[in-house]
């Protein structure tokens, strides 16, 4: 039986982790970290989990310790946010290249500077090429559900890659909202025991992890990572199907909202997608054919599927909550536009940077985006394809 509750996104992910009961959880215990390790430390102190919780002196160390534990054969994770992710940058690549299936509970917040603690996606977007699977959430429910599914994806024998479970800082991490929690036993059965194939603490099979790789091997190692990534979308879908059986909640690589006959669409990530849905419902009541693609899996990027979902659209706005400083938009814009190009799409496409440093996104802001797309269709001209939303010029 599911349990109805009201929790912040931080509490929700901490509860998922209690239910998962991982082996090792090193974390930096103060700002810029989040309440997730704080809640979890209470669970550990109260004996509700068997986890070795290790407070460490930095994020560089928390990720290093999580990597060491994972290499040794433990199910491990860490948690952080913003500058904390920046400080573990070097180790992100180590985790991925060693094919270690550990998890990172990330709360998306802006990177300094200027100094800012609020939501945007610049932290994880900067880490998008590190070789991690990235999964994003619209609300506390999705953050919880994604965490429950995380290890099933990352530990899959065809994948074996680390996974980042992302949610929006403050907007979902600190907002109390309704949620449905699964029974502890259901989560335990769903996640299962971790049985690593190769690990350092296996006396039957001595091995080295992370040795120097000369020119002769480095490229094959990177190619192997890419091979693991290729399997991720199918595994994500398979795990989602099993998850639906225990939760009743359906997940894909992305969510298509009212896209069936949409002529105008936005593509976006995170909490503002909920706000966009309200805007879409309002416009649909006026007969306007508008819809939304909300990204769940960003790395690897489901390019063909997204191009297919957008095939009947006449104009699309791709919304980035991070700058790319390419002079033509952000990272999601680049990926979606490349997908549209390969699919020989003729849709008008613009890229909008929005919500940086917690800049609020209102229903009216999203209605304006759809109005701008209408103008583009009427003019048959996309005009400026690199735009900012809600900016004082």
């Amino acid at each position, binding site marked *: 039986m599911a349990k109805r509750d*009201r929790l912040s996104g931080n509490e929700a992910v901490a509860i998922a982790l209690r239910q998962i009961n991982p082996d090792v959880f090193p974390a930096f215990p103060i700002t810029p970290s989040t309440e997730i390790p704080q809640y979890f430390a209470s669970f550990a102190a109260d004996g509700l989990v068997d986890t070795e919780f290790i407070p460490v002196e930095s994020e560089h160390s928390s990720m290093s310790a999580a990597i060491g534990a994972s290499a040794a054969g433990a199910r491990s994770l860490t948690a952080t946010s913003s500058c904390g992710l920046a400080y573990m940058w070097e180790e992100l690549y180590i985790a991925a290249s060693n094919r270690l299936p550990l998890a990172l509970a990330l709360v998306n917040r802006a990177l300094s500077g200027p100094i800012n*603690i609020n939501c945007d996606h610049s932290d994880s977007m900067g880490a998008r090429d590190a070789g991690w699977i990235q999964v994003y959430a619209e609300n506390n429910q999705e953050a919880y559900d994604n965490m429950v599914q995380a290890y099933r994806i990352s530990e899959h024998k065809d994948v074996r890659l680390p996974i980042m479970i992302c949610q929006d800082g403050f*907007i979902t991490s600190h907002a109390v909202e309704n949620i449905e929690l699964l029974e502890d036993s259901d989560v335990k059965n769903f996640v299962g025991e971790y049985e690593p194939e190769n690990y350092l603490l296996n006396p039957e099979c001595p091995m080295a992890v992370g040795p120097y790789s000369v020119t002769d091997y480095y490229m094959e190692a990177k190619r192997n990572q890419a091979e693991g990534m290729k399997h991720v979308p199918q595994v994500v879908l398979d795990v989602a199907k099993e998850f639906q059986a225990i939760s009743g909640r359906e997940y894909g690589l992305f969510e298509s909202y009212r896209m069936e006959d949409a002529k105008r669409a936005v593509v976006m990530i995170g909490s503002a997608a909920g706000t966009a849905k309200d805007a879409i419902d309002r416009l649909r009541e006026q007969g306007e054919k508008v819809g939304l693609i909300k990204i769940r899996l960003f790395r690897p990027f489901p390019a063909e599927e997204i191009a297919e979902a957008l095939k009947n659209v006449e104009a699309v706005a791709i919304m980035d909550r991070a700058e790319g400083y390419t002079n033509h938009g952000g990272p999601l814009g680049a990926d979606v536009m490349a997908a549209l190009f390969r699919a020989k799409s003729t849709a008008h496409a613009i890229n909008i940077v929005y919500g940086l440093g917690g800049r609020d996104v209102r229903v009216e802001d999203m209605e304006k985006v759809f109005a701008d797309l209408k103008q583009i269709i009427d003019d048959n001209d996309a005009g400026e394809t690199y735009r900012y939303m809600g900016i004082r010029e």
Partner: protein
Amino acid sequence: MSNHTEIRWHGRGGQGAKTAALLLADVAFQTGKYVQGFPEYGPERMGAPITAYNRISDTVIRVHSNIYDPQYVVVVDESLLETVDVTSGLKEDGAILINTERPKEEIIPHLKGYKGKVYTIDAKKVSLASIGRYFPNTPLLAAIVKVAKIMDEETFLKEMRASFHHKFASKPEVIEGNMKALEMALKEVQ
């Protein structure tokens, strides 16, 4: 949107406006509603103006923006009346609730011509008489539940007792004081 209530809290860091918004979400959830309670963080320091928000609805809440046109506003610290536009967007068929020891007539001229209902409560008096220290958020929570008719008083008090037992599990001695603050506030708000 038949039954959808939006509340905006104005307080200062350290006064518990965020906690009050989260407790309100908590208690409204107990009546089967969809809820949202969230703070808007500015500079992280004691005394800085902060805003917190509640949405309480019969239907699923998806919007994740701040609240610009609330039905109700709660002012936890009346000194904010001079520096923050507390009635901004406030609906005329709604109400504003202000923590003050002054009579209503003295407050109204500071509300920039707001035409809706004005309620006041002396949360300091209530808090000192019940808890023994000044925690304005507990009396204001009870007052806004009454003003906004979130639920009937009996259910509210019952749910809050359960909530305090959970929240103050490690210091049960403060529960009675907080309960008394709620009961007094329900009578004192005017």
